[in-house]
């Protein structure tokens, strides 16, 4: 890999931009596709370009054969995002767990006593109201949203905003009873049952989780299941 290619790749990543590195596996010749890419060694024909486009759209690195040449298309997308609403005890465990699994984590809580640096060292925190915070984020199919406050005045605006967008996962903490009253409120707001069914509640896989760390694990497990159960669809 040439210095200029590595530098452009790191710059694209720092700018949270997508890039694809195309390598001809025989010779090692490479061309980077993405913002600020230097001129490459490898000419990309129409066939190779269409492989690159579909790899980027599917968020999936792949090898490709064209004629008797083999290529590798390495997709570098920005990290998937997890937005946690509620800077509560479970969030303190879920944030670092999700970071280990490769997510860029944002914790949203307007309550100053909860959203503190001391409680969330190194985690991106915002004290905006959840709907305002979500409006400012690119909530797409690489995003998961989890509400943990139990408090309708914080959780509901976040869930309503989430349902109007297309995150790959929406989870809401709360018992079946809490969720039943949440469903009633969302219906009243105008969401239909199919929309409301996109919310995973009670949140997480049923692994008998009791402690905050176990609950965080069950949530991350359910997110992983949703993420990998089928290939992500190409963005509309």
């Amino acid at each position, binding site marked *: *890999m040439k210095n200029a290619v590595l530098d452009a790749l790191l710059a694209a990543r720092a700018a949270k931009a997508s890039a694809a590195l195309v390598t001809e596996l025989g010779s090692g010749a490479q061309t980077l596709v993405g913002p600020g890419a230097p001129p490459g060694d490898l000419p990309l024909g129409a066939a190779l370009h269409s492989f690159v486009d579909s790899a980027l759209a599917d968020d999936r690195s792949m090898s490709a054969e064209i004629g008797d040449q083999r290529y590798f298309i390495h997709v570098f997308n920005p990290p998937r995002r997890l937005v946690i609403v509620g800077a509560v005890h479970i969030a303190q465990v879920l944030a670092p767990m999700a970071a280990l699994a490769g997510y860029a984590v944002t914790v949203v809580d307007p309550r100053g006593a909860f959203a503190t640096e001391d409680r969330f060292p190194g985690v991106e925190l915002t004290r905006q109201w959840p709907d305002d915070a979500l409006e400012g984020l690119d909530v797409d199919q690489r995003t998961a949203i989890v509400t943990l406050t139990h408090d309708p005045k914080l959780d509901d605006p976040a869930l309503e905003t989430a349902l109007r967008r297309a995150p790959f996962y929406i989870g809401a903490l709360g018992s079946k009873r809490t969720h039943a009253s949440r469903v009633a409120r969302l219906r009243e707001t105008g969401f239909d049952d199919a929309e409301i069914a996109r919310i995973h509640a009670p949140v997480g896989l049923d692994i008998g989780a009791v402690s905050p760390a176990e609950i965080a694990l069950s949530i991350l497990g359910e997110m992983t299941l949703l993420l990998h159960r089928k290939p992500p669809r190409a963005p509309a």
Partner: protein
Amino acid sequence: MSELKTGTGASFTAPHAILEQAAAWRAAGRKVGLATVVRTWGSSPRPVGSQLAVDETGAMVGSVSGGCVEGAVVEEARAAMADGKPRMLEFSVSNEQAWEVGLACGGTVEIFVETLE
């Protein structure tokens, strides 16, 4: 650098930090090899796109298997640093070398090894 400390004092380098580490080694004037999983068959522990970077002193970050073939990959990376040529490696249970290095999971993995120029 996205290095997450674990409670045991060990550290784990996040996948996205591997190229950053490779660039840091290069900036320090060291030769650097980069291995990338380009294809897998059957059960293999690391998905396509997983990377391992190694410098001329043998320091490494990342992984291309569950630890089964890393030793052999590092040797090939050092050979690539010496002659500047990229390499394709294949490890599987049907492969003599894989038995030696122990790809016990039963899968096959194809790894591209290159150097930073």
